[in-house]
């Protein structure tokens, strides 16, 4: 009690005002120090994967010296992985699946979001809430019944089975953030269009899609990264290597192949991780907008 009272006396305030700059400098120093430590820890695993992928098998098997340094860098692992027909197959499968899923997701969610944001109809509010709820249902809750359903359709061990189920991962969130983006477009814009005699589809294509383009890009990036990284469904539904996408292909097939192929495994993992990382590097602002939109918008 007396201590707090003493703090409120004038000398205390003078002291504080005098040291404001020093305090500011100290805060900056702490900030940079913590960020540096965090950056080192956050970037160490990918860096170590890169180091390993540049080592020859002999160097990895030798197990001497610092594992964090590479003495005889070689691109053999990357050459081996990129020329392996199995890995090329994984890559192709991932591209086909992701391409189809992104296309389906964007068509479905833009149409639905437009209807839900602008054309108020019976149950549209409840449906919007339902969409968000669906987003909260994790894939690990659904993979067993979906296994039965996909099996019943004869699509187990097929990339088309994955194309069928991946939209459950992407559509709810994309619809949700698109509702947010569409709702933020001023009403005057579509009233003007209506007066000019535009039909609803025209309004969507000529006004909403161009105006909400940043949102559409963010949603597309989200759909791409999610379907590229999906792991539970392909692990459950695909067991033949020629139908596997990259994630499960790298994890199950490369690891099984040879215990000492760590260099190749890491090269494969890095190559598989490259597309989302490249997209992130070039479209960081859209990526982050999509990430934070879920909670701050709509």
């Amino acid at each position, binding site marked *: 009690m007396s201590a707090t009272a003493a703090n409120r006396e004038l000398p205390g*305030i003078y002291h504080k005002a005098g040291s404001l700059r020093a305090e500011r400098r100290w805060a900056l120093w702490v900030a940079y120090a913590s960020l540096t430590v965090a950056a080192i820890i956050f*970037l160490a695993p990918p860096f170590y994967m890169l180091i390993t992928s540049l080592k020859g098998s002999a160097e990895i098997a030798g197990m001497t010296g610092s594992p*964090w340094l590479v003495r005889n860098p070689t691109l053999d692992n990357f050459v081996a992985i990129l020329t392996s027909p199995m890995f090329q197959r994984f890559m192709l499968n991932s591209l086909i699946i992701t391409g189809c899923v992104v296309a389906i997701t964007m068509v479905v969610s833009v149409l639905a979001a437009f209807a839900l944001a602008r054309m108020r109809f019976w149950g549209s509010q409840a449906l919007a809430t339902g969409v968000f709820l*669906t987003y909260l249902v*994790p894939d*690990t809750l659904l993979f067993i019944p979906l296994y*039965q359903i996909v099996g019943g359709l004869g699509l187990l061990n097929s990339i088309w089975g994955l194309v069928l189920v991946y939209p459950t991962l992407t559509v709810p969130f994309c619809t949700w953030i698109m509702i947010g983006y569409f709702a933020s477009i001023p009403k005057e814009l579509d009233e003007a269009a209506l007066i000019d005699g535009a039909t609803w589809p025209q309004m969507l294509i000529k006004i909403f899609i161009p105006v909400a383009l940043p949102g559409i890009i963010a949603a597309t990036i989200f759909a791409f*990264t999610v379907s590229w990284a999906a792991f539970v469904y392909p692990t459950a539904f695909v067991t033949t290597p020629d139908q596997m996408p990259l994630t499960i292909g790298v*994890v199950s097939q490369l690891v099984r192949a040879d215990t000492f192929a760590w260099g190749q495994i890491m090269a494969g993992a890095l190559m598989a991780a490259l597309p989302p990382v490249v997209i992130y590097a070039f479209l960081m602002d859209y990526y982050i907008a999509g990430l934070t939109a879920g*909670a701050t918008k709509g």
Partner: protein
Amino acid sequence: MAADGSLAGVALRRGAPNSLQRFARRRSSIALLMTTPLLVIIIGLVAYPAFYAIYLSMLNRRMTEFVGTLNYEILLESETFWMVAFQSCFFAITAVLLKALIGFWLAHMLHDIPDKGQRKWRGMLLVPWVIPPALSTLGWWWMFDPSYSSINWLLAVISVPEVPWLGHHWWARIAIIMVNVWIGAPFFMIMYLAALKSVPEQLYEAAAIDGATGFQRLRYVTLPMMANIISITVLFSLIVTFANYDIVRVLTNGGPRDLTHVFASYAFQVGILSGNIPRGAAVSLFMLPLLALCAFFVLRGVVRRNKEQM
């Protein structure tokens, strides 16, 4: 004449609502058409499977007979199941707490440095979130490798004895949490940074004039303004972490001796790998109560936030 007039009147009166009605009908039918694909996906691939899972979980192993709650009873009596339940809760709670704390700290640190540098740092620190989790976990697995662990090598430099990362179940649990925190902390950081930036500067100015200390600013300005985002993020992360599968599958695959299984990986093991689909469905359905509770509060938070912004 009069009849004619009244007829014309009726026709007119009928004509106006008719076209309006038709317009309304057209608008709602277009809306219905536009939402149909979404409805098909939500009902056919989420709602129906969810109920189908409940039905499945009440069948016997060969799915020929209805056995009621037998699968649940067997699970509740098995020791492995309780271990799985404990591990799932322990993992989710510890990991989410750590992620939230680290994310909060880093968001503040990012907010403190000049705007110019923020982009660069933010770009670097989000990398763990961008790499597909299954693949980065593969990198971690190699770092934990018992014969040539690069982490143990670093620890040896500061003369810490070798850690049996994936060999001992407690270390394996810690390893799983470490990887999850590594992947998830950047997400919290980004969310909190966005929230921090949305706190009006005037509030801090007013607090400064009133002579608030740094801690008071945090306690009475920042935290109340961020409370909703914090709770939404934490609950959302609790759902995702509790239902996590990738990390356990790649890092330990449940071992050593099934001691690191979480609900998702155990359901996978029982349902898909051992072919007991009904029991697997029962295992995964045990996640439902906690997930439903979290989902309810997330939804409430989001709705409240929407009202605030309107």
